[in-house]
């Protein structure tokens, strides 16, 4: 596959809730090694779009292709088998498990399945556990949580949980990674770390699709940006193109808020 072939292709996808078109005719694609960001005011349909792409909602119209194969409306676990992973805006952490175990769950598809081996603790299960634990530890190190590996997730601070979700998603070695507000609630230092992390993930050849409210982060990191407004596509382009797009400025703060919009988008 060449670098220009999209890994994720979303075509004219849409869904309505009680007559309201939450996502309406949205198309985009993400290529390996690129950071593709989706921005828009609250309620623009960004998270709904993620839920459509990741199989949590069933689209009413449109299609999704993953690495060239049609995957529209497949179950999330089937999508995971094909290389799609994601994080959640409202944390979906396994709170009763330790940080390490959370990441080990992310290895699920790469682990051996034999139930009898699991029930009777055959040597293969022990090897598998150690292998998954080693991968999890390396990933926790990578997201800066190595010291908290044995901590129950319920005891971790918010910023750490955001990074824990990224580590769990990476454990599956995805081709496409959807990140839903990874920097929400993070301080500037943590945000900078997350930026470096995302850049590194993309450099490893993953197609990263990012929803994020921190505009400075989005403008710095994105190769391309899609702007949603009320479920529709408003604009798509590079950071510079989006920043100077009058429609985007208007959608963000209305015509009277040009100055604030500039501040927000800069």
């Amino acid at each position, binding site marked *: 596959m060449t670098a220009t072939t999209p890994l994720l292709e979303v075509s004219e996808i849409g869904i309505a809730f009680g007559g309201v078109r939450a996502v309406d005719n949205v198309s985009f694609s993400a290529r390996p090694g690129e950071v593709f960001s989706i921005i828009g005011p609250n309620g623009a349909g960004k998270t709904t779009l993620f839920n459509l792409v990741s199989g949590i909602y069933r689209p009413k119209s449109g299609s999704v292709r993953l690495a060239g194969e049609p995957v529209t409306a497949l179950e999330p676990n089937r999508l995971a088998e094909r290389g799609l992973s994601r994080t959640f805006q409202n944390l979906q952490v396994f709170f009763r498990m330790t940080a390490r175990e959370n990441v080990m*769950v992310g290895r*699920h598809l790469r682990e051996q399945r034999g139930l009898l*081996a699991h029930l009777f603790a055959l040597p293969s299960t022990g090897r598998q556990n150690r292998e998954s634990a080693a991968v999890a530890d390396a990933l926790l190190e990578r997201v800066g949580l190595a010291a908290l590996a044995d901590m129950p997730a319920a005891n971790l601070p918010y910023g750490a949980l955001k990074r824990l979700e990224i580590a769990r998603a990476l454990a599956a070695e995805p081709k496409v990674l959807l990140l839903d507000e990874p920097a929400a609630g993070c301080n500037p230092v943590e945000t900078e770390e997350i930026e470096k992390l995302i850049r590194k993930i993309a450099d490893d050849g993953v197609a990263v699709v990012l929803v994020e409210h921190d505009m400075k982060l989005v403008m710095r990191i994105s190769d391309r940006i899609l702007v949603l407004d009320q479920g529709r596509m408003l604009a798509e382009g590079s950071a510079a193109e989006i920043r100077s797009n009058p429609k985007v400025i208007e959608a963000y703060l209305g015509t009277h808020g040009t100055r604030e919009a500039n501040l927000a988008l800069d």
Partner: protein
Amino acid sequence: MGRLLSHRLAVPLVIALLVVALSFAMPSNFYYRVAALVWISALAVIGLNLLMGYAGQVSLGHAGFFGIGAYAVAVLPAQFGLHPLVAALLGAFATAALAFLVGRPILRLKGHYLAVATLGFGILIAMTISNEAWLTGGPDGMPVERLTLFGWRVRGADTWYWITGGLLVIGAWIACNLVASPTGRALRALHDSEVAARVAGIDVARAKLTVFVISAVYASVAGSTLALLNGFVTPDKANFLHSIELVTMVVLGGMGSVLGSLAGAAILVVLPQVLTGFHDYEHMILGLIMMVIMIVLRAGIVPSLAALFKGRWKK
């Protein structure tokens, strides 16, 4: 990881030591018998705890599976002359098959809906056992052929103490293995967030079905063992009151704790024996003790005490 692996072996080891240690403190056959009843209940409760405490799915129908196991060792030898052990094995297979068939539609339900559906299923089995009197003896129950192993007649409360204690240790070992395995992590994950579990690639419906079948087999084996120990079966062990009792043992001892399963079973089996001296007030006192335990140790006996001791250590 090292901690988890050692935990996997530590719990069955602690139970094994407990079984051995207690055997030195048994004043009479009666005590052996009560202890054997605790081990059998604990076995069923460990299975139910895998479903409830680890995977977060409730079942109010597990006495039904218990009943199938019990009646398998009563009916199959009487009708077809099968060896009781073969009968117990067939009972376990039948239970697994039934749990598999019923689990598919039922486990799509969640919370209270799942509770009511499993309750209905359990009642269905209990009614069948009660009504098919030609086969099961109906409400009066039926005798169970004594267990003979290689010409040796298994008898005596102390013998059964060791058999049931051994089964409990094996059951605890298997449960701890499962919890510490990829399958166990999948079950604990879906308990906390089904959506995140699915995104991680876990087939949630399949995982729930797997643990439902496993927990049903635990109940069936426990039922067979109790029937062989008693030499008699009655439908009340398949009854929904027994289902409630099993759930109570899980919650009282501690959800998601294998040792807790033993604690819960021990309390609900031993306390009524201790309290018989109070005659009419027995059930009142039992209820009161259960309420106080839940109010003081709200995560269940073992997890709450463990947290308490951990806190002490740190100070």
